[in-house]
């Protein structure tokens, strides 16, 4: 039996994969003071459901996969450890200058961002290495020991070390580590060349300091989790989700906790890719995860999970860059809780403000007075006020009406239904434009992709979005509301290693490159034989980070060979590079030489080769008598609309829109003119 637990802001989702392959979902409230409590509560629910004691239940679990927002929350709320930053003399302001850049040129209300580590806790180390790895100034060890003494006096809890060019010659960072071990034992530190050996000091320093600052808290949390699971009978393997869309051994993550940042959203494309293939035999998919406040988008192209080197916590240029390639998920402020408002010029807006979970939409009656997308759907009859979350939460239609009338109908002189319909339409338009930006930016025509809608609020307008985009197929997976936990069950054990070595196609250093690649392969093999032992399948993939001469940014292109024997190998790589460049940027430049900056290897170990099981949650759904109700659509007006229960639709069963399909977790609106069919996998496949 395998478990996947995703601790979110509001709920802790548990997905159980029984040995039979069938799945079952359990939810409990997240307990922010002690998140482990929430996890154990969810597991207890599963044990109760099975009718066995917790000890007995956990004893049968082979693999426990966990994703948590613990790390990212700590960064956002600035509750990380008191961390010092050690860097090369003369460069103490790496985290202050960052890489420049700004958004919203006329907005002077946003202050200049504070550095991730305060300047007061930044210390310069007298040393310097050149871009070619030569030691220009040797490390002043005496001065460093004095600095370490200061760290002790300041009661530093963690240390990030990022020296210039440590990625070419790590000697000085290694020496710093030795002196830290000797003079500051027990205080965790992160070395930049070990954690993230990339060019560009700001990115490397940012990931190094962020990682160090998470170490005390995350090792305590993960240690606690593993202890308490063991106390309750768990003897299996504890794996952690990462921002790279895979899993890592808990111990390994504990040593580099930055990898858990963004792990939740990274699972959506993994699951989306799976359903696109199973339900529509498609390799290109737009995966859209609609939550209460954000709309998370990712694009699966030709079966590959998209990665990006530009992941920020907070807004670009205002927040902090993670500095690692991570699964490319674009998040826009649009969701069920997005607030509709009319500005002083009489223009309707939806978002970016959100009512969040508290106070929430007006219909929650928890103090929210502004109309949200959820309120609009309620007024339109798309959501049943008595069957929200399976009836566990009653919604107040009157409150929605009041909010819409006051904020939208009056200033715009619209009827209640027209106003609600306008809100939904504009929310749809916001999401469409976000998708267009993601797809066009990567040279994909959205019409050629299938749209996978996940998340509790996806069903409300995913069909409308697809229609606007011209997508021919929409997939709503059965367990869309716990997509991340589901993705976790099919993700692989992975790791990646990087090395920096600069060379160019007209002066290629075969010897050094091949030596670098050999070392990377060796590291991967050690991983496969170590943590990866016993996996079903494994593979190693090498990449070069290269660019056309004079360009500024590299792209990652997979290597087809394990080493470079001669000019044919370079030419073959070159062809792949040109093709990749053309695909990403619409052109290639056959005349320019290539510059190689970095090398990367990934090792992937498949933990499960069987597909995803079916969801078995019959007990959670209620039988309902309703079979139709009035709902408003802009094309047909108020229309008597068929209502069906998600789990009662049989595989192959077809329904024509207008229709509304409900489950305790979500509501799916099938617009007039669209049709839906239930698939063997449990998904709904809709033709808009």
């Amino acid at each position, binding site marked *: 039996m395998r478990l996947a637990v995703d601790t979110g802001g509001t709920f802790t989702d548990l997905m159980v994969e029984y040995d039979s392959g069938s799945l079952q979902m359990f939810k409990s409230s997240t307990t922010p003071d002690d998140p482990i409590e929430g996890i154990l509560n969810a597991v207890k629910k599963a044990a109760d459901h099975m009718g066995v004691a917790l000890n007995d239940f956990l004893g049968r679990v082979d693999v426990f996969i966990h994703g948590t927002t613990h790390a990212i929350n700590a960064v956002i709320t600035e509750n990380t450890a008191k961390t010092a930053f050690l860097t090369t*003399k*003369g*460069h*103490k*302001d790496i985290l*202050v*200058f*960052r*890489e*420049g*850049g*700004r*958004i*919203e*040129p*006329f907005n*002077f*209300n*946003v*202050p*200049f961002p504070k550095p991730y580590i*305060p*300047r*007061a806790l930044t210390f310069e180390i007298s040393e310097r290495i*050149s*871009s*070619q790895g030569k030691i220009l100034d040797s490390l002043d060890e005496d001065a460093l020991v004095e600095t370490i003494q200061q760290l002790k006096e300041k009661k530093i809890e963690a240390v990030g070390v990022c020296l*210039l*060019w440590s990625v070419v010659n790590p000697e000085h960072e290694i020496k710093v580590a030795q002196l830290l071990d000797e003079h500051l034992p027990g205080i965790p530190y992160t070395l930049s060349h070990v954690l993230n050996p990339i*060019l*560009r*000091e700001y990115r490397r320093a940012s990931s190094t300091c962020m990682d160090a600052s998470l170490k005390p808290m995350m090792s305590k949390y993960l240690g606690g989790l593993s202890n308490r699971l063991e106390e309750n009978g768990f003897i299996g393997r504890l794996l952690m989700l990462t921002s790279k869309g895979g899993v890592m051994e808990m111990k390994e993550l504990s040593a580099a906790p930055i990898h858990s940042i963004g792990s939740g959203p990274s699972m959506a494309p993994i699951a989306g890719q799976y359903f696109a293939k199973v339900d529509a035999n498609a390799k290109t998919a737009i995966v859209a995860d609609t939550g209460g406040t954000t709309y998370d988008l990712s694009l699966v192209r030709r079966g590959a999970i998209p990665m990006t080197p530009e992941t920020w916590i907070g807004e670009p240029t205002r927040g902090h860059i993670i500095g690692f390639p991570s699964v490319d998920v674009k998040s826009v402020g649009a969701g069920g809780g997005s607030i509709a408002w009319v*500005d*002083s*010029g*009489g*223009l*309707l807006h939806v978002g970016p403000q959100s009512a969040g979970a508290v106070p929430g939409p007006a219909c929650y009656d928890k103090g929210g007075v502004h109309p949200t997308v959820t309120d609009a759907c309620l007024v339109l009859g798309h959501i049943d006020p008595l069957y929200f979350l399976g009836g566990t939460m009653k919604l107040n239609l009157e409150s929605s009406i009041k909010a819409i009338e006051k904020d939208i109908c009056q200033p*715009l002189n*619209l009827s209640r239904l027209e106003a609600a319909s*306008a809100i939904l*339409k*504009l929310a749809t*338009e*916001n999401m469409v*434009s976000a998708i*267009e*930006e993601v797809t*066009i*930016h990567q040279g994909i025509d959205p019409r050629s992709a299938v749209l996978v809608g996940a998340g509790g609020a996806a069903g409300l307008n995913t069909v409308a979005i697809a229609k606007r985009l011209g997508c021919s197929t929409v997939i709503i997976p059965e367990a869309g509301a716990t997509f991340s936990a589901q993705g976790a069950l099919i993700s692989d054990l992975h790791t990646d290693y990087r090395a920096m070595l600069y060379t*160019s196609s007209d*002066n290629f250093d075969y010897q050094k490159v091949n030596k670098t690649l050999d070392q990377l392969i060796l590291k991967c093999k050690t991983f496969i034989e170590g943590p990866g032992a016993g996996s079903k399948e494994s593979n190693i993939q090498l990449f070069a980070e290269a660019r056309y001469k*004079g*360009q*500024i*940014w590299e792209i990652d292109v997979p290597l087809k060979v394990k080493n470079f024997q001669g000019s044919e190998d370079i030419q073959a790589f070159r062809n792949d590079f040109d093709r990749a460049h053309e695909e990403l940027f*619409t*052109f290639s430049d056959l*005349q320019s030489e290539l510059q190689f*900056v970095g090398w990367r290897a990934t090792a992937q170990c498949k933990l499960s080769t069987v597909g995803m099981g079916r969801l078995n949650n019959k007990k959670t759904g209620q039988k309902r008598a309703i079979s139709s109700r009035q709902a408003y659509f802009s094309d047909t007006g108020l229309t008597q609309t068929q209502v069906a229960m998600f789990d009662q639709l049989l595989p192959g069963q077809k329904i024509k829109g207008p229709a509304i399909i409900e489950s305790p977790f979500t509501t799916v609106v099938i617009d007039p003119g669209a049709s839906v069919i239930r698939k063997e996998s449990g998904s709904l496949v809709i033709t808009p």
Partner: protein
Amino acid sequence: MNEKRSNKIDPITLAILNKRFDTITTKMANTLLRTGRSGVLNMARDFSTSIITQDCQLLTGAESLPIHCLSGADIMAKTMKEMHPTLRKGDAFLHNSPYHGCSHPADHTILVPVIDEDGVHHFTVWVKVHQADCGNSQPTTYSGDASDLYNEGALIFPAVKIQDDYEDNMDIIRMCEMRIRVPEQWRGDYLATMGAARVGEREILEMAREFGWETLHVFATQWLDYSENLMIDAIKKLPVGQAIVSSIHDPVPGTPPQGVKITSNVVIDKENALIKVDLSDNPDTMPCGLNLSEACARTGVMIGIFNSIKDNVPTNAGSFRRIQIKIRGGSITGGGKHPTSMSVATTNLADRVTNTVQRAFSQIQDGLGLAECGPDGTAAGSVISGIDSRFKEEMYVNQIFMVFTGGAATAKTDAWFTICHPGNAGMSCIDSVELDELHFPLIVKDRHIVCDTEGSGRQIGAPSAFCEFGPIGDHPMTASWVADGAKNKAKGTRGGHDGSQNRNYIRKEDGSLETQPACATIQVKSGERLVTYTCGGGGYGHPWERSIKQIKNDVIEGYVSLERAKEVYGVILDKNGKIDQQSTKLRRRELAKPLNFKN
């Protein structure tokens, strides 16, 4: 004007069409960003994309460097229509003439008229890109010392038809290739620019099929009215007032030795919901490259205004209706005629114009406007060139963006440190030390913020950054720059102090510093290094009004020394950050005294 614009479209369609038009300009910008070749495009993001209505009004534009994209599109589109009364589908025009609405000759702009099946012109899409080279007599696009256009040497294209039926006019392409340095790079950027414009054209045609041209035109009219209404609202929230503010640009070859004094007379006319800026009281054009094009003079004013009002007003022809700018014919601020050189119109004097306008707002009422931003153009942003002995003795030439600061304090917040210069608004990127050391045979010894250089005030202006770099290997390195702000600092406002000035030196091998001029092309020998202090920005409000909590943080973070905290801010604290409340109260009272007497 089209006559049938009386029927209104509903607010939902208005909101949706606005989103659609915005998406188009963003798509155009993305196309450009991912296909552009030169660093000035990729790193400095020196380009803009926008859509212009049938009657030549700026409708919408993507977020970009502000100096690029406010005023000028209208004049450029008008020029295109006047010079080419019959526009055909498939036409495209190359335009960079500062005498016909363009900012400066380095900004090559492609205009594509969007024409329907019946040959009717409906919109114009517009893409402007700063070139790495534009054929000047010297290898730079910023010829500060050019005595006139002939001396500057730029190729000028006053809305020249470069495509006919979607095909390039190869004569013009070949002329450019013969005259512009690194022609492959120019051609690459040209293709990217044209590609972006054609994306915009295609998208608008598609939208017209869905909504009909009439709806799009009604939208344009209503959208501009809506933007005007937001602007009226924003102005109605301002106080009535007037301020005349001056700011002096440092002298360069071709200007009087005391420099160039720029004056703006700013009036907030609340009753008529207008902001009036009179630039008449400025000198005549001068035999140098600083003269402002009309587009840059107007845009410089508008940046100062939009920096100072509520930030949700769309920047288009609708909101611009509430701005009246007076330019005197023959003046250095936008009144120059051919062949006056306007080579550096987008930065130096334009920045001084913006500074005077935003500071005028602060003079009218506390809580409005900003202090002055520091100008850029230091040695840390030089064009560097030389021989790279690490790689086959290859020649290199490129502009670096090693560091810049300059942000002005605003009425409500401390400065955004890395603003670069007012027309840039901080949109450009700063180089990575490692990337520069990999690309060029140089070493960056030091790059940090200098303590006690902030523009003191209730809100502080950006401090100076210090930067020291030099060549490695046997060969020297040539560096050239045109700086402002060495003599005339960025001014503080409402009691805020001025920002620190720009300083450039060469550090000799013996460690001594040799002062360098503001505008220079010099050789840095092997073993020597260039040393720069960047311009800081001005402070806003009296320093002793700054909150004690903020001062404490400034001291702990090493931006302000204990002595300066006491002397300038009147806050007395020890090195652990413990405040001496009693002495602080006394000291602050003492600092405020001269002012109280005055009143």
